[in-house]
């Protein structure tokens, strides 16, 4: 059994794949140092990230297929699924070994798996654009928590930078404990301490919340409740479009929130 261990970066993974292909060893597992538990009987290959080797293979993939396809591979990687490394390995191997472009050859297992995975990741990224809810803070920063299944916040940064160009914002991944901050000029990666934000409810602490914020959350919830047409109630479709795992950070699904009735 051959196990390749890389350092949890994308470049590291591609380096590992490079080494596997080069040495003609078929890896049984490619695994990041974070997830690796020692295995007594396996042959272990520790891979240190090497940008040269990363680029040789990455450029070859680009040449053989195209930029979009590389984007797909990267998206699939962001899924962080346990066996995604092997899928990517098989996919890249297939691309390099076949004389023609195989990216839509759906009779190949790795092609289907990779495409399905990257589609799921893309969908999750889309969910962020839909369900992120900003809370305004006293220093006029719009803060949002999100708990995505896959590591997709990096994919959405451009969207928010274009859309909210004139407001400072933060989007924070409460599962992976990092986020992005836009300061009207640039976006940079940040981490936030527990004392400012409650990671389970996603809420900013009351003392840093802008005075008007609660009112707008109430306004939004009352709008949400009113726009519903009772005669057409259909919870099945509702749950299909708005799965429960997204409810926790949505003000309109905050059942504790009370707005004055008349």
């Amino acid at each position, binding site marked *: 059994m051959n196990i390749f261990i890389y350092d949890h970066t994308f470049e590291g993974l591609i380096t590992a794949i490079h080494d596997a292909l080069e040495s003609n060893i078929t890896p049984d597992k490619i695994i990041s140092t974070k997830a690796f538990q020692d295995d007594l009987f396996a042959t272990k290959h520790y891979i240190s990230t090497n940008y040269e080797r990363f680029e040789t293979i990455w450029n070859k993939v680009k040449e053989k297929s195209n930029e979009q396809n590389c984007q797909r591979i990267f998206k699939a990687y962001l899924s962080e699924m346990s066996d995604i490394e092997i899928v990517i390995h098989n996919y890249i191997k297939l691309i390099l070994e076949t004389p023609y472009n195989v990216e839509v050859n759906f009779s190949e297992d790795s092609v289907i798996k990779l495409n399905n995975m990257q589609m799921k990741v893309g969908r999750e990224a889309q969910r962020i654009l839909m369900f992120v*809810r900003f809370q305004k803070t006293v220093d006029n920063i719009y803060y949002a928590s999100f708990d995505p299944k896959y590591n997709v916040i990096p994919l959405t940064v451009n969207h928010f930078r274009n859309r909210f*160009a004139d407001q400072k914002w933060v989007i924070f991944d409460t599962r992976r404990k990092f986020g992005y901050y836009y300061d009207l000029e640039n976006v940079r990666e940040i981490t936030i301490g527990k004392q400012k934000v409650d990671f389970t409810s996603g809420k900013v602490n009351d003392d840093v919340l802008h005075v008007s914020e609660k009112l707008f959350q109430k306004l939004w919830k009352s709008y949400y409740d009113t*726009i519903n047409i009772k005669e*057409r109630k259909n919870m099945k479709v509702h749950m299909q479009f708005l799965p429960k795992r997204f409810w926790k950070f949505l003000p309109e699904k905050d059942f504790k929130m009370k*707005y004055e009735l008349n």
Partner: protein
Amino acid sequence: MKAETINKLKISAKAAKYDVSCASSGSNRPNSGKGIGNASPWGICHSFTQDGRCISLMKLMLTNHCIYDCAYCANRKSNDIERTTFTVKEVVDLTIEFYRRNYIEGLFLSSGVIKNPDYTMERMVRVAKDLRTKQNYNGYIHLKSIPGASDDLQQQAGLYADRLSVNIEIATENNLKILAPDKNFKSILTPMNTIKSKIIENKEERKKFRHAPRFTPAGQSTQLIVGATPDSDKHILNLAGDLYNSKNLKRVYYSGFIPVNSYDKRLPALIEPPLKRENRLYQADWLFRFYNYSIDEIVNDEHPDLDLEIDPKLSYALRNPWMFPIDINKANYETILRVPGIGVLSAKKIILARRYSKLNLSNLKKIGVVLKRAKYFITCNELKAHTINELLPKNVRKILLSEKSIVKKSSNNAHKQLSLFTVN
């Protein structure tokens, strides 16, 4: 922004909720000059209500006072309901604040008619203008055009809005006159024609001057109420087809009639809204717009109404067994699209995948083609199976319906909003 706004917002939203249009797609207005907002060409939904509809735009009525008395409308003047009027500033502020928090994708503004059409339209245009010019807002704006407003106001509205719409509501002129004595087809079709010609004019202009301001980049749409009058599906779909072709409409919405004024004896008494029929009409609409079907193939004199039990595509296939089975490995894209159960996405995947090898059933399953209905209408790289011609259409129908009823029994979902694409 005061707390009383909550009350206003509720009254206004209650008045506006029966408009089904909520699309925020079709426009790609960029965020120029570091303002706020942009329009995404494919649209983004931001929430979903319990009735399964998406919330993309904030739907508001500038006022729900109205001088008209249309039988099907919740805001008719003879109804004794709470009325309210927003100021322009209130709507602008609400839109911006909601938008900044990523609650909404934009604004859908309509209004009851107060004083006269021009007065009403002018205030609506002011909202759009303030948003664009004062707030530097580039998000989506959908304005309901008020029939009877002047051309000049329509022109201004089109310059600030991404989409304009004029609702026809009732598919035949006679029925419209009975239910809405203040309206007629001419007053509705005139603004539609104006908007259409302005869009064409604008396209020509933009060919000459690339930076000429755009006129309703997301086009215009309309809404038809289904089930309030005895109009057949054939009539409704032909009207819709006509609107798509001759008025260049982007979307026609079908709204299952909800009896809001049950005291009015001109309207039918319904136990529940005709949601199934509404769903079938949307499916037919899709066939017409994306599947290269003609209206005549879907509904005709022989079959003036859509089959409520099965979808229009399956219904067409069962009526025309001569064109099946279709060979998945040889047929062209348009023909594959005609197979019940195979949609645009599956058809495209089939075309791509069959370049590499002949496809059999397990290949099809792997790439995600749903075979439940399709298997009776195709042949592929597989031994001969019983298709529609051996089984006969009526038996295929029976088999498919019986499979459906098993599902139905287990989840009691008799009359609800259906999702547009059934996945099973």
